């Protein structure tokens, strides 16, 4: 082959090589971004879970005076908070989050039977704040789960799986309460 043909083939090969390198770099950067997104969106949920956990003692102490005979309901909220503070993994936190939401909902439902409590401004403000935080958690949970799903699909697809395996990327857990993983809230009366 002539020098010209060699040069032409070399240039063609260089184009292909550049495209392949850029492609793999973009896979690497894409996976890093996805992993980073998961971390960021989890941090956004975690901060809200902590904020809600911080508000629960205030809620319990506000309603305690009115609902002295509802020890079971109040204890459920207190225990849910304790479980939330002890939960470490995403799955554990998701399970406890659901229990906490249910315990707080029960408390609101029981509060309906106490007109004086329903008129208490502190209680109303706390109720508003906790409901607002719960709505934000719901919004961010959706975003977190979308991030995790996108990441999990990527690291199991070809050719991303090559880069993911080399980097030892593992599937991440969804923020979803699974029956087996949910912690049972102990009710002590």
């Amino acid at each position, binding site marked *: 082959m*002539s020098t010209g043909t060699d040069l032409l083939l070399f240039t063609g090969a260089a184009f292909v090589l550049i495209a392949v390198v850029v492609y793999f770099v973009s896979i690497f950067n894409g996976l890093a971004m996805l992993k980073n997104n998961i971390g960021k969106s989890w941090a956004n949920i975690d901060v809200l879970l902590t904020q809600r956990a911080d508000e629960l003692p205030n809620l319990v102490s506000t309603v305690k005076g009115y609902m002295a005979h509802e020890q079971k309901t109040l204890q459920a909220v207190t225990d849910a908070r304790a479980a939330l503070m002890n939960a470490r993994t995403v799955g554990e936190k998701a399970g406890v989050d659901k229990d906490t939401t249910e315990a707080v909902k029960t408390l609101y439902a029981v509060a309906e039977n106490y007109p004086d409590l329903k008129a208490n401004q502190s209680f109303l403000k706390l109720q508003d704040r906790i409901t607002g935080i719960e709505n*934000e958690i719901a919004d961010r949970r959706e975003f977190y789960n979308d991030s995790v799903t996108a990441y999990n699909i990527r690291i199991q697809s070809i050719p991303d799986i090559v880069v993911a395996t080399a980097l030892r990327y593992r599937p991440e857990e969804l923020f979803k309460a699974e029956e087996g993983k949910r912690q049972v809230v102990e009710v002590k009366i």
Partner: protein
Amino acid sequence: MTEIFDKNFVGATFIFYIIFFFIGLLFFIKGLVSLRVRRLIEDTPTSTAASVAVGPVEVYGQAVPYVLRMFSPFSKKDCVYYKYTVEEYRRSSGGSGWAMVEKGERRIPFYIKDDSGMVMVEPDGATIQVPMDYEYESGLKKDPPNSVIEYLYAKGESYKNLFNWNKTMRFREYLIESGDYVYVLGTADMGLNPSKPENVVGVNDLVIHKGKNIKTFYISDRPERKILENMKSRGLFYIYGGIALSLFCLAIILHYYGLI
């Protein structure tokens, strides 16, 4: 004489193919960039306006003007972005075709509104891709609409020639109208949001703008699926087209030098 002509001819051709070789290279790079942005769009989950957090974000919702109201120059539509072109059909010995007389664009800050609330978008520096919304033409027996005539007079242009006959002109508008569904991929940050109007509630404190670290800032009035399809076909076209153009030009150059 023939030798000099041939040398000039070869020289001019050489430069021509060198230029096109680099144009092919630029197409190739443009294709790679397009596919990179496509991947970024694909990998970024869509946030609701209320849950937008600091960092790279993607939102989809209706465009709502912030404080300023803006109207497009020709169709007078209430919009948050417009781009327009004015072209004239010209004939000459070298050929005929549409020549650009004037073009321009304007963008203003706007909100993206969805079921959860609103978030502000500061569109400076964004790549905005919208399909053409309106097209008007003028010809010998066809006047352009009044709004176009007013606009041309304001700009010191006319749709009539020296003989007071209508020129053959084409007026195009590309818009993001108020209420259009808009896709935005950018970076959300704190502290940039100007004071919120008092009557507006449910507005996120963050502003989506062009980020310092992630430079991609893309706005379109198409849904995400269409954007991805479009970017894929365009990216592959530029990559394959760029490689083909560059290799073809290189082959011609080498052929001139007798290397092939």
